[in-house]
């Protein structure tokens, strides 16, 4: 684990369980997920649609849509527990100590207000500053996120900016109150590749300069490879594997991770066929017993059908798979 005991982790998610009660029974969307993010560390959270990666971010932000709820587990931020706080206390943390960036920069901004008004409102919500100071800060922030002519852009409306510029404004908004933790949920998915490269580079620089911890949620392993220090691979609401990005990409341990890496088309690869994981991720109302991946797994053992594997250290990574039963490393 990276978080050194002297400082302690910035974010510590312990055995998180998120449930959605429905008429036909309780759906478990996140099941026993544990993650840690050290200060200044970028943790990638990767998985396919429905794996629970966005919900993990929402749970940390305290933004689960009812009837969704945290049914078990704890979330600690900078040593203090935050999952059991009242709505008003959470609101003071969100934006102040935890910033958030979401996928679509157009829906994240209010079309009826100038970008300057939106940024100064956020600054004045969290910090005790005058209107003039807020304006100065806002312009400085716009400059920091790479917006040319920030003083002019301050008075423009979101529709006057391009997609990449809007995402920069969203990033500026998330940074207003200098949060210690940033949750970035698919921050580049809606952008073109050349814009995506610029935003990745910007986020990487801000993380470096400010020493923020980041939870980077994405389906794109390429973005993870470019930005993250460690990565957690989620499958059916559970952590299949967690480890250093290099290890997970080059030496995946869990059969799902192996399949996922083989399924990604790579430039310059000579293989004519991609690795294929047959079947699809189970629906929430039909998660198999034992290991959730066992019906699609080519290396399953009898044990996988009955017993659920727990995260086990294997060569620096932690893997939830019966192929790695003990401390083999």
């Amino acid at each position, binding site marked *: 684990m990276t978080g050194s005991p002297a400082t302690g982790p910035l974010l510590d998610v312990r055995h998180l369980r998120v449930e959605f009660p429905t008429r036909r029974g309780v759906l478990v969307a996140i099941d026993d997920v544990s993650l840690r993010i050290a200060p200044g560390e970028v943790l990638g959270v990767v998985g396919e649609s429905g794996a629970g990666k966005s919900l993990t971010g929402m749970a940390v932000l305290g933004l689960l849509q009812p009837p969704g709820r945290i049914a078990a587990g704890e979330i600690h931020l900078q040593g203090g527990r935050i999952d059991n706080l009242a709505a008003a206390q959470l609101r003071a943390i969100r934006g102040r100590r935890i910033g958030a960036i979401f996928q679509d920069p157009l829906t994240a901004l209010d079309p009826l207000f100038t970008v300057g008004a939106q940024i100064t409102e956020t600054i004045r919500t969290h910090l005790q500053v005058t209107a003039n100071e807020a304006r100065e800060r806002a312009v400085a922030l716009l400059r920091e996120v790479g917006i040319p002519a920030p003083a002019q852009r301050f008075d423009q409306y979101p529709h006057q900016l391009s997609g990449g510029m809007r995402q920069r404004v969203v990033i500026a908004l998330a940074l207003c109150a200098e949060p210690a933790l940033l949750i970035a949920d698919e921050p580049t998915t809606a952008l073109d590749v050349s814009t995506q490269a610029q935003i990745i580079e910007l986020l990487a620089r801000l993380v470096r300069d400010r020493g923020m911890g980041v939870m980077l949620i994405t389906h794109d392993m*390429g973005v993870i490879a470019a930005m993250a220090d460690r990565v957690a691979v989620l499958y059916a609401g559970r952590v299949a594997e967690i480890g250093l990005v290099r290890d997970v990409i080059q030496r995946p341990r869990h059969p799902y991770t192996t399949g996922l890496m083989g399924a990604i088309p790579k*430039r*310059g690869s000579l293989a004519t066929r991609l690795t294929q994981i047959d079947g699809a991720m189970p629906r929430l109302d039909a998660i198999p017993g034992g290991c959730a991946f066992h019906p699609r797994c080519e290396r399953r053992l009898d044990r996988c059908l009955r017993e659920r594997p727990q995260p086990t250290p294997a060569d620096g990574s932690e893997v939830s798979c019966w192929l790695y039963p003990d401390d083999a490393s």
Partner: protein
Amino acid sequence: MTHPDPPLLALEQVGRDFDVSPPWIDRLLSRAPRQRLVAVDDVSLQIRRGETLALVGESGCGKSTLARLAVGLYVPTRGRVLFDGRAVIAADSGGSGAAGRQRQRMQMIFQDPYASLNPRWRVGAIVGEPLRVHGLVPDRVAERSRVGELLEQVGLSARDAARYPHEFSGGQRQRISVARALSSNPEFLVCDEPTSALDVSVQAQVLNLMRDLQARLGLTYLFISHNLAVVDHVADRVGVMYLGRVVELGPRDDVLNRPRHPYTRLLLDAIPDLSMAGIARPAIPGEVPNPLSPPSGCTFHPRCPLANERCRNEQPALLPATADVLVACHAVQEGRGLIAPERGA
């Protein structure tokens, strides 16, 4: 080029404009002129039988417009689109006679399998519709058995014909789209971002399926994608588009491993690559300009590190850079700037 047999699809200086003027009364009040957006301009390319030509580019570069021009869903404003030597007939010009026979030979697969299947039709009716329209089956019994074959060909079951699209996952729906496209025994398939709405493991299933079908049925693909890794995986030849024009066109290995046009190099540098974990990449300045007011000369010049006075004034033509590769760039033609080093895996 050294291929004697005529191309299956040929675009000859094709252009397509769209009228994006504000409503008449607004124009009158603000004295604004009509506005035309040039979505595709002066594109010439050929697709040979059995090959996959992939077109890549960022949003708004005109690649989807080109796909629609290829199958007659749009009529070109300038130039000609020829399929097997004959002009492609507009899709809205009725389905009988020569138009029907031509249309049967070309089909399209769309990006979003949630929007491209009628939710109120059973899968059997969706896949069987081209069979009925083109009169390819004598009766219901024959239709049902052909639909069953088609579904099995794409890895579904004949029994799935009785189900509705909502009962299937995204990947399975895209298989249904493929089965429908194959039902009229086409030679030519236009695939517009067929996997970009899918998760990677499902994308791998669909890409493998498309490759198997091509080998088995001798299909010709025009493959539209923004994902260069996917293109590297499926294409024989690659065309790179920027603001409505093809800027580089050639065999896949040339275009992706030895890119010549500065834009192609920029695109290739911009994709995060799994092998590059932890390595800083150069950032590329600027964004795609507004196609309503494209820059003068070479439309890429504001972002190009090699741009000079000529690039600002004169639009470069797509000219041979080697025997197989065409590039539209003054710098490449004049031999100014860098020769790209070999880019390995």
